[in-house]
């Protein structure tokens, strides 16, 4: 891992060792061509195409798709438009989910990583076990937890009842319980993913720094505060931004576990955008929503980036 990091920092500035004898000519472009074709068709062009769509009254089922300028964007800010309430309701749902899940998914996996980073027998087995839910995918964990959280038949309420706690909580249909469920399931599902990234980051912190801290008589906490945290900073930044992006992308959990219940309170922005664009086929409006959400995420990412840079 250290090698890879070193490689990224030196690789770009290193002089080119094996200069080609003939000019490179077309060869590099030929190697790039197949990927470039896919990249342009399914990433670059769609990103621009989506922007174009958002400027039209683009109904998939109608032949005419009139240009409407910024109308689709304006509608999202005008309280009399039919999409206003639903859109902001869904943005609020995504916001609530992100605000509660991101701190947990940043802190809890770090704790797990610190535990698993110590040397003891069987640590790779425990690491694999904690990571395992992640490989199952959202559809499996969605239907599984829909069952476990079933208010009447689910194992969660049965277990709570067995130890004398309330046993009829409406985990999938009541508030705030639906949020507790969605956040809890997501933490359970993706905790191992972030933990593995942290472990790689911890292993990149030079041992000498810990030895030096010991010589200086630093305790466990001081060591964590002055060696571990600063050493993890780039990884921490990645985990925070990646987790914010993943949380704002939340779809499957709510689609399968709460289905937006109780009403549309847990219908996330992505669920609403997908319904509006790919079920009701109002693609112009849906595309505008997706760009607005992207803009919001961009701002949040930039603020996060700033915070990490100035926090010295």
């Amino acid at each position: 891992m250290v090698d890879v990091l070193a490689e990224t920092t030196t690789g770009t500035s290193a002089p080119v060792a094996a200069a080609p004898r003939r000019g490179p000519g077309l060869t590099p472009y030929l190697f790039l061509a197949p990927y470039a074709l896919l990249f342009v068709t399914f990433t670059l062009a769609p990103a621009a195409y989506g922007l174009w769509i958002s400027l039209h009254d683009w109904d998939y089922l109608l032949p005419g798709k009139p240009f409407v300028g910024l109308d689709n964007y304006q509608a999202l800010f005008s309280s009399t438009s039919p999409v206003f309430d639903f859109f902001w309701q869904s943005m609020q749902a995504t916001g609530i989910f992100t605000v509660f899940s991101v701190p947990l998914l940043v802190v809890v996996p770090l704790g797990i990583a610190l535990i698993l980073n110590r040397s003891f027998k069987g640590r790779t087995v425990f690491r694999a076990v904690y990571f395992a839910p992640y490989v199952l995918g959202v559809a499996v964990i969605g239907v599984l937890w829909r069952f476990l959280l079933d208010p009447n038949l689910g194992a969660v309420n049965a277990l709570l009842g067995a130890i004398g706690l309330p046993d009829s909580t409406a985990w999938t249909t009541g508030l705030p319980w639906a949020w507790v469920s969605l956040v809890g399931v997501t933490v359970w599902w993706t905790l191992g993913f972030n933990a593995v990234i942290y472990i790689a980051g911890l292993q990149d912190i030079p041992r000498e720094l810990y030895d030096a801290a010991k010589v200086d008589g630093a305790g466990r906490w001081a060591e964590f505060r002055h060696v571990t945290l600063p050493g993890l900073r780039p990884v921490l930044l990645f985990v925070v931004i990646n987790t914010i992006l993943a949380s704002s992308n939340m779809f499957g959990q709510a689609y399968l576990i709460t289905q937006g219940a109780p009403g549309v309170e847990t219908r996330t922005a992505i669920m609403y955008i997908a319904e509006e664009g790919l079920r009701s086929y109002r693609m112009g409006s849906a595309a505008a929503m997706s760009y607005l959400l992207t803009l919001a995420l961009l701002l949040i990412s930039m603020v996060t980036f700033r915070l990490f840079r100035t926090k010295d």
Partner: protein
Amino acid sequence: MGRVRGIAWYTMLSGLSLVFIAPVVWMLITSFKTPDEATRVPPTLLPQSPTTGAYDTIFSGGSQTPVLRWFLNSMLAATGQALLVLAVASMAAYALARMEFRGKRAIFALIIATMFVPSFVLIIPNFLMVDRLGWLDSLWALIVPGAASAFGVFFLRQFFQSLPRELEEAAVLEGANSWQIFTKVILPLSKPALATLAVIAFLTNWNDFIWPVYVLFSPGNFTLPPGLAILQGAYTINYPVIMAGAAIASIPVLILFVIAQRYIIEGVSRSGLKG
């Protein structure tokens, strides 16, 4: 570690393990219960009369819930995409790691920048792209667009750059051309990285949910994730059947995880370095 502390340590770690394992075990146990027993309150711990009834039900599910077909579709889509990713990403990554050409930095920066584009922005325009290509409601829609992901190129470029140049230089002296160097020197040296990428690409595709939910329409063309959603809708509280479906969707990835754990965890670890 002292003996007592050691015991406390392993008790804590095992207790935590239970939190991750128990739900999956419960899924398997329930899939062998009768619908009646699965709705009993409080639930029975082990099936009292274990039955494969749930599996029989979904395998004879007919045209509305052809689980076997979904399984096959998932396998085809995930394998197809993994192979496509390996082919296109390795070639592009080789050019970006080892060749000099105009626009190289800009091209690489552009590819990396798209790693931060949220995927939902591309869903609607890509739906229209796939529609134009005539791929809606077909496996092509699940195999090809996802292969444009930047991760493979980024990941393999890093790996290729870490390879020593001596072997390539020797091959050049022997008169090998770029394609020969790529296929005879670089690729054989990169087997672990290629395996990692293949496994990650397979898993990502196998587990993808939102895209197949919206681009596939006929039950016969579904993969397992959207299939599970209709299974949940069709069997509501017949949980043994739903859990049997979930088990069928889980077993291949769990086996893959046990076999290729090292590669998966390696791939995930590396993804953190892109930040």
